[in-house]
């Protein structure tokens, strides 16, 4: 369900790929190419914060199970949002603000009504529904922070 059909059992993945790219699913930091300091170390506890959300295999079952993904084009969908959250929770990453610029627009994340079926069908136990609610909480905090100190205020 939810994916436009090209022919027979072939569905169009263009929209899904665009949404996956939109959340910038890679480590963002100024010194990402600077190897002089050695590896970017991470403790097991820091790894545990995002490991579950990094297990996605892009099977897209969550999109097929999500009633919002079928109704709302602006909604980025479970896998893409969980992946964005996975990088936001990565202690080596500094790109949360950039990702939130994409995730907090319109229905991109707020379209989610926590039906929870994405988590039920996920074969890798990623729990996209949980990741999205956590990302919403971060987004709500960010909204008030930006309200108090808008971008460019030097805070």
């Amino acid at each position: 369900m939810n994916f436009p059909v090209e022919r027979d059992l072939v569905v169009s993945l263009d929209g899904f790929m665009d949404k996956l790219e939109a959340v910038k699913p890679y480590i963002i930091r100024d010194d990402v190419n600077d190897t002089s300091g050695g590896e970017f170390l991470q403790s097991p506890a820091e790894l545990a914060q995002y490991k579950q959300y990094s297990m996605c295999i892009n099977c897209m079952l969550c999109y097929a199970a999500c009633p919002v993904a079928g109704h709302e084009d602006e909604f980025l969908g479970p896998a893409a949002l969980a992946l964005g959250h996975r990088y936001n929770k990565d202690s080596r990453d500094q790109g949360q603000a950039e990702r939130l610029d994409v995730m907090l627009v319109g229905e991109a994340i707020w379209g989610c009504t926590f039906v929870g079926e994405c988590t039920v069908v996920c074969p890798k136990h990623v729990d996209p529904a949980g990741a999205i609610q956590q990302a919403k909480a971060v987004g709500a905090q960010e909204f008030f922070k930006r309200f108090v100190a808008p971008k460019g205020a030097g805070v």
Partner: protein
Amino acid sequence: MSGRYHRPHGWAWFLERPGYIRFMVRELTSFFVAGYLIVLLVTLGRLGGGEAAFAEWLSALSGPGWMLAHVVALIAAVWHSITWFAVVPQAMPVYLGEKKLPAPLAAVVMGYGPWLTVTAVIVWWVLR
């Protein structure tokens, strides 16, 4: 999304999966919670209107219709609370180092525990 054929979604989409039905029931219970809040606000308003107005409102509330409405609202509110406490561990996971607190325990720590504590304090305050 691009593509040639978009499969249509009917108005009865929520009957397609049991999970969708559970979702709709959870969402609809919020109307009963809101309804009870309005009753509570009216009660407060009558309290401000003097002793006679309040007594009249209370006797109206003890009629069978209102009693039934309250029982239905209570069941809806309890179900509303249970379903939301069940998803609290997903939305607010508690990490102890590398380990995530198991979901049932997290539901008690983050949901049922505070709920029962606040309820106990209110019961004590009312009955003391």
